């Protein structure tokens, strides 16, 4: 068991060095972001963003797959690296639910740059934490 843990540690340590060697140096939002959101530190929901820059607008999807939510708008203030993302989803009853995420990009030069901030989904408010994959 200890060997397995050690192997896993070594593997992760190597990966932590390997990944920056293949950094994406283009638009800072482009790519896949993974993390979670929730109203408390223990109540969390898996979250994946896939964002793309086409030269004029940033488009994307939240949680790609059967329950994907198209992103309606992305606004970035490049003077302070703040980002506001809005999307519209539906709850299980089919009722419209508005999603708004407002946060800040950190460690912009890093491949694993971070995007954290506040999250509101319908009446639920919380925070989100995303790291670029």
């Amino acid at each position: 068991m200890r060997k397995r843990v050690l192997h896993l540690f070594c593997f992760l340590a190597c990966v932590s060095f390997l990944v920056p060697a293949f950094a994406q140096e283009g638009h800072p939002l482009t790519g896949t972001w993974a993390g979670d959101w929730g109203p408390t530190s223990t109540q969390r929901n898996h979250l994946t963003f896939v964002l793309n820059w086409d030269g004029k607008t940033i488009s994307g999807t939240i949680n790609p797959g059967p329950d994907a939510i198209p992103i309606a708008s992305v606004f970035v203030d490049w003077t302070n690296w703040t980002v506001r993302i809005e999307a519209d989803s539906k709850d299980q009853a089919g009722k419209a639910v508005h999603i708004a995420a407002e946060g800040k990009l950190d460690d912009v030069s890093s491949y694993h740059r971070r995007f954290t901030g506040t999250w509101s989904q319908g009446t639920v408010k919380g925070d989100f934490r995303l790291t670029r994959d």
Partner: protein
Amino acid sequence: MKPKMKYTVFSVVIVVLWSLLAATPMSGQPLSAAYDSSRQVKLQGPVTRIDWVNPHAFLFIDVKDAASTFTNWAVEFGNALELEKDGWKRSTVHIGDVVSVEGIPARTESRRALAKSVVLTRTGKKLFTPAPRRAAALPAPAPRWPDGQIRLGPPAGKKGYWGVPSAKVLIEKAAASIPMSDDGLLVNLADADRVAPFQPWAKAVFEHRQRTILKDDPIMRCLPPGGPRQFQSANGFQFVEQKELGRILVLLGGGDRNWRMIYTDGRPLGQPDEAVPSYYGSSVGHWEKDTLVVDSVGYNEKFWMSSSGLPHTEALHLTERFTRTDLNTLKYEVTVDDPRTYTKSWAGGWTVQWVPDQEIQEYFCEDNAETTFVR
């Protein structure tokens, strides 16, 4: 293989791999990112090791402080190839020689400095100083192939390669007078707008790279100098024209000592949608009188086009024009078209000088990583 042995081998591989990767970022670091020129350091002590390697040669010296404690300093003092051209050798200084060093300390690492001068204490002789500028090659017209087309490589039966560029940074033509360091660090960040017609995000990224003193330059990880940057390498480049194959190879002296292919066989520009974007893209060229015009697309986003931190996207399209105006001069002009990054197409360029009667020497960016910094 027995489980225990398998485990040991695996562990050794992991440790070695980790060590190499951890060391790599230091190997190709731009000077501004590596050293803090606002500070000075004076060191004296015996030489304990000499790393006569590219791209950076190092002396290691034991320095005794006031409390008689020894610390071992790594002193970078030049590029081994350039030093050899200037007549200096590994044997110029010996293990045990006491040297005095005046230099610039590293920004992040302790016990590392860039030498401004190295003096052999015993004799007072200054070591590793550059030789007087070598005489320029004799003027001559650009060499041609039997069919009259300009030769981009050496004249028939001769040697030589393209060496020093007249500019070390790519900027928009009209902005040629912007004050900046050799590696593209702007003296005044407010000049960023003049470097290129950035989209807002690109300007923010460029300024961030400048503010962080270019420390995240992919070159630091020994990644290839993609795009125009390949023609600003300190170690030069060479064209190998394979007319019978309809292609021109560009051999790079810097970077990872890799090459780029320019097809001149009439194929159309572009590559299949599924093709993997690359550092040098897909290039096709044709001759317009005495100028080779090369169009390239298919770039990845893993490199900086210039040491100053110019961003780009996979939409990048470069049009390069190579004109050998005489034997010794290559005029390089590039038009940058990337509508996802810049508000309009823009152009820059420089000239490159011919280095006659010599060939590109062995250079591996990783060399320092594997010798100097795995301690």
